[in-house]
Each structure stands twice: as structure tokens, then as C-alpha cells.
């Protein structure tokens, strides 16, 4: 019987704090005055996120494992948890006015955001396949419910239903893969799977299932079918959280499983060929399909959904270039996902800012004239779109640069060329909203700012600052990403 001590209790903080916040929010909700803004709930949520944030700094250090090796406290997990918790905190804090107008600012909205964050952090820190599965489920179940929370709107329910059915299907793949891997090795701990001489063909089958399941969760082609509908139908605040947080957490587990358990250092290195083959196909498909489909969109949320498929392709390119080694390629993928979570959260926060009474401000043509009427919102949205397009001086540029360089150095020339070409293609659809905002007159009345929007303004400002800061002085964060990947060894 193992004994657990202080180290175990401290390791609970990063995901325990949001969970505690969720419980407090649920208990407080009935005691609040009805039909008044539920600001106290947002503040409790924010406070619990800040505690989790502080605990990350406290735990930052050399790799240790806790709970009989189920949980890894290493720079890799903490680095991405930093992005996840920031995204969660900004969403909880910044969308109170949006939620009030959409009629969803109930206790459950905040509590589900908090449990989803808790699941994401658990996923980023999980060191065995059982916790990987549980983290995926806690995160996904919360997000399914959040996607359908405006359940009087048909599109929202449709989004939640599609996301739920396909997500459950993907979960079954993950679980089956885990079962086969356990059957082949007799282990669920990632670091032990790596050192286990196993029945390779069974291991490869399990790995294939696992990759398919993860492919669904991060929205990689050809498993991306749910993305456009789910992103379009879910309320804007939830979509931003989904695009940034779910993707970051999914990639955290994906990268950790591939590098630690099936990487180049594993005792059956032939399995790393299996996933590299699967992933370079998925990467090429996502980059092509995502960017081509985004060209034709007229709805901003739908366009961003297709763009998220494309960005999944770029992040996968980094993983492929890493080939399971603890080196530059994996670090580039990690940094890319880190930066992406900020630049994709931003546009959705702007949409949430401009939406009134639960009707999302989402048609690209509606953006016309925004540059004169709402200069700050238009400026921030332009910055985020430029970052998504990969133009300097933003984090999108640095991230793409490192991914492409490591892919080129790794000998993936054709894939790198495809990445560069699709990036050029993407500039067209990212620039179109900017052109509309500054060079056309408004076609319809644009919503004016209300005082309660200050939290959203504040969060957009912070996100924009992060996008610029990461783009101008990336070296510290790149070093942290490299240290994170090195801590996987």
C-alpha cells in the first residue's frame, strides 16, 4: 500500500483550485438576488483560477511524480497549464455581460467553465493513460454542456448534440486504444510503457486507435467534421474557451503520450514510425482542408473554426518534425499551441463584446465600418487576425517560423512547403475582415459600448498584449517550451 504525503496534496492544487471554485459557485448561486448580474460568481471563479495560477509558479521545478506516478509535476505540464488557466480565468472574468445578455449567467455556466478548466489541467499533467482518459472526459463533458447552454436556440442545441455524439465516439476510440496498449504492455504509466518490450503489432493497433481519438479531440482532418457546426452554434464565450483551452489541453496529452510512451527513446522504436506516418497525413490534410474551406466562409465564427483546423495542422507539423525526440520539433509544437491559445481566444472575446442580447455578432459583412465606430475593438481584432495569419510582429509569426524551421531541418521539405503555401493562402481570408472594418461604411447599426463591458475590454487588452509580447520577445517563452519538452525525459 503506497503512502501519500504533502507532495501529493500540493500536486492537487493546479486542478483542485478550479474545482473548489466550482463547488463554491454552485453553493453561492441560490443565495444571490435573482435577476441581478451574477458578478460575485465570476469573482469567485477568478479567485480560484488565480490560486491555481500561483500554485503553478510554486510547483515549477525539476520533474517529480506523485500519486504512485499517476501525475507528473514537470515543466511541460505546468507550461501548458499556465496557458489553460489563463484562458479559463479570462473567459470566466470577461464574459459576465455577454452571459447576462444571452440569459446564461447561471451558477452552472461558471461552474462548468471551472470544472472544464480543472479537467484540462488534469489532462496536461496526467502521466498515466487512466488519468489521460479521465481528464479528457471531465473536460469534454463540461464543454458539451456549455456548447448547448443557450438551449432555446436551435443552433446551439444542434452544436452540442453533434459535438457530444462525435466526441463520445472519439472517446470510445481513445478508450479502446488504451485497452489494447494495456493488453500489449501490461502498463498504463507512460514512462513504463516506453521501457516495456511488447507485442509490437498489438501496440501499434492500440496506438492507431489512440491517435484517431486524439485527432477527433484536437480537430485534425479527417476527424474535423464536428468543428464548424460546434464552433458556430455554441455561444461565442464558450467557443473561444473551446478553441483555446480544449485544443491546448488535447495537444498537451497528445504530445506527452507520443514523446514519453512512443517516442524515439522507447524500447520498441518501430511504433514511432506508425504515428509519424499517421500524423504527417493528418497534418497535410488539416492544413489544406482548413485553409481552403475557410476561404469560402461568410460567418466569422465558422471561418475561425476552419482556421482552427488549419492551425491544428501546423501544430501537428511540429510534432511530426519532433519525431518523438525531446528536441526542437516538439518544443516548436509546444510553443505553437501555447501562442495559439491566446490568439484564438482574442477574436471570440471581440465577438462576445460586440454581441447583444444573445445574438452573436458573427457575419463578416457586419464588420464593415467597425474601424470608425469601435476603434479599439477593431484594432484588437485586426491584431488577432494578423497573428492567426502568421505576420510579424505577433506570436503567430514566431510560432510558425519555429515550426517550419524544425520541420525543414528534420527533412520534411514537402510538408514545410505545403505549410508555407497554405499560410500565404490564409492571408486572404484573414485580411478580408480587416479591409471591411477600415475601408467600408457601416451597413447596419453597430452596438455601442456599455459600462459593464469593461471586463471584456480588459481581457481583450490583456490577450492582445500577450499576443504582441510573445511575438516581440519570444526567447524566454521559447526557452520555457524547450525546458518543458526536456523535462519529459
Amino acid at each position, binding site marked *: 500500500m*503506497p503512502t501519500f504525503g504533502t507532495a501529493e496534496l500540493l500536486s492537487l492544487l493546479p486542478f483542485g483550485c478550479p474545482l473548489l471554485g466550482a463547488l463554491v459557485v454552485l453553493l453561492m448561486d441560490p443565495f444571490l438576488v435573482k435577476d441581478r448580474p451574477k458578478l460575485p460568481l465570476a469573482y469567485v471563479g477568478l479567485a480560484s483560477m488565480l490560486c491555481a495560477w500561483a500554485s503553478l509558479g510554486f510547483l515549477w521545478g525539476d520533474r517529480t511524480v506523485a500519486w504512485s506516478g499517476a501525475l507528473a509535476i514537470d515543466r511541460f505540464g505546468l507550461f501548458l497549464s499556465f496557458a489553460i488557466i489563463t484562458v479559463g480565468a479570462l473567459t470566466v472574468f470577461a464574459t459576465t455581460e455577454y452571459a447576462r445578455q444571452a440569459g446564461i449567467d447561471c451558477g452552472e455556466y461558471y461552474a462548468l467553465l471551472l470544472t472544464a478548466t480543472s479537467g484540462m489541467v488534469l489532462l496536461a499533467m496526467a502521466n498515466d493513460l487512466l*488519468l489521460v482518459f479521465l481528464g479528457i472526459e471531465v473536460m469534454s463533458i463540461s464543454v458539451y454542456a456549455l456548447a448547448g447552454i443557450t438551449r432555446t436556440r436551435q443552433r446551439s442545441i444542434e452544436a452540442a448534440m453533434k459535438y457530444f455524439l462525435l466526441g463520445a465516439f472519439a472517446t470510445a476510440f481513445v478508450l479502446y486504444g488504451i485497452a489494447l496498449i494495456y493488453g500489449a504492455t501490461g502498463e498504463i504509466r507512460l514512462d513504463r510503457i516506453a521501457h516495456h518490450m511488447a507485442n509490437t503489432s498489438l501496440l501499434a493497433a492500440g496506438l492507431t486507435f489512440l491517435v484517431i481519438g486524439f485527432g477527433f479531440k484536437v480537430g485534425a482532418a479527417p476527424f474535423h467534421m464536428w468543428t464548424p457546426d460546434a464552433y458556430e452554434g455554441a455561444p461565442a464565450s464558450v467557443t473561444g474557451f473551446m478553441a483555446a483551452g480544449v485544443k491546448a489541453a488535447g495537444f498537451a496529452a497528445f504530445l506527452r503520450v507520443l514523446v514519453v510512451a512512443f517516442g524515439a527513446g522507447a524500447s520498441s522504436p518501430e511504433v514511432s514510425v506508425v504515428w509519424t506516418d499517421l500524423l504527417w497525413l493528418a497534418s497535410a490534410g488539416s492544413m489544406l482542408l482548413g485553409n481552403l474551406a475557410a476561404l469560402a466562409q461568410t460567418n466569422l465564427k465558422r471561418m475561425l473554426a476552419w482556421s482552427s483546423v488549419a492551425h491544428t495542422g501546423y501544430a501537428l507539423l511540429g510534432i511530426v518534425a519532433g519525431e518523438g525526440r525531446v528536441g526542437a520539433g516538439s518544443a516548436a509544437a509546444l510553443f505553437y499551441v501555447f501562442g495559439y491559445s491566446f490568439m484564438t481566444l482574442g477574436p471570440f472575446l471581440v465577438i462576445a463584446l460586440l454581441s447583444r442580447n444573445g445574438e452573436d455578432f458573427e457575419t463578416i459583412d457586419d464588420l464593415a465600418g467597425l474601424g470608425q465606430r469601435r476603434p479599439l475593438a477593431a484594432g484588437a481584432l485586426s491584431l488577432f487576425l494578423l497573428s492567426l495569419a502568421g505576420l510579424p510582429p505577433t506570436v503567430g509569426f514566431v510560432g510558425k517560423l519555429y515550426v517550419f524551421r524544425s520541420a525543414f531541418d528534420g527533412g520534411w521539405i514537402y510538408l514545410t512547403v505545403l505549410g508555407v503555401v497554405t499560410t500565404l493562402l490564409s492571408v486572404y481570408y484573414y485580411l478580408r475582415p480587416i479591409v471591411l472594418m477600415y475601408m467600408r461604411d457601416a451597413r447596419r447599426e453597430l452596438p455601442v459600448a456599455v459600462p459593464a463591458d469593461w471586463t471584456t475590454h480588459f481581457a481583450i487588452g490583456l490577450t492582445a498584449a500577450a499576443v504582441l509580447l510573445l511575438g516581440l520577445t519570444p526567447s524566454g517563452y521559447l526557452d520555457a517550451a524547450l525546458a518543458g519538452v526536456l523535462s519529459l525525459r
Partner: protein
Amino acid sequence: MTDLLFLLASAVCLVSALAVVTRKNPIYSALSLVSFFGGLAVLFLLLRAPFVAAMQLIVYAGAILVLFLFVIMLLSLKEEELGKEKGGRFKLFAAGLAVVLALLVILPVLGSETARDDFGPESALAPRFGSAEHVGMGLFGNFALAFESTSILILAAMMGAVVIAKKRV
């Protein structure tokens, strides 16, 4: 004797699993699922996991399937509401895909000659392997965190169900 039991239980499992997906009436599907769970419990027993076998019967065949049946009967679907059988080509595709996936799993297992003895002889197992005590020690020992995390999962699922189902936010 063990081989005979194995063949019998696997046959029950295969036939009833096929029945679950091919029956048109959802009640028949749910009842086939019960018999599938029964066969699965026997397989677990043969794998020296009596506790899991008992849980399989009590939780799945007992509690969850009864809920399934309740829901189906409450909805009381009429013949016409179930709709016409459609998508023949799609079904063929799905069946083909299922066969490919099954082969993907079966072939590696058949390919390894030692598949049967991978788990070693009975003496290699921990004493009281598969008993409730053994499972309990695992749940509160090595797998304590995973065990506790399932409660977060259940909490999230509960909140989600409430928020989707309740009348007024």
C-alpha cells in the same frame, strides 16, 4: 472445461452483440445487450476477475440496462416513428469498416504465439488476485487519484444534465 465455457460465452457474446445492432425494435436491442453483458461476465470470471464479473452483472446488466429500458418504454416509440430502414449503402460501408477494425485487433493477437500465456501461470498472480479486497486496495492505493477524479467527472456530468434539462436558467 474452461475452453468449452469460453467458447460458449464467446458465442453468446457475439450473437447478442450482433443482435444489439441489427434489431429494429430498441427493446429487443436493449434485451440483447443484457445477454451480452451476461456472456461478458462469464468471460471476466474465466480471466480470474470475479469482482469485475459481479460488478458487470449488478451495475450494467442490473442497474443501467433497467434505466435504458425505462427510457425506451417511456418514449414508447411507435412503428412509424422508428422510420423506414434507410441508407443501405452506408450500412454496407459501416459493416466493412467494422470488419477492418476487428481484423486490425484480431490479427496482431493471433500473430503472437504466446498470446495465451502473456499473463503467466496462475501462481504468478498476486494472492487473492481479482477479489474485492484486491480491487479495493488498488482503488485507494495506486489508483487513488484516478478514483477520486471520477467523482469530478460525475459532478460535471450532473451539472451538464441539469443545465440542459431545466426549464428556466
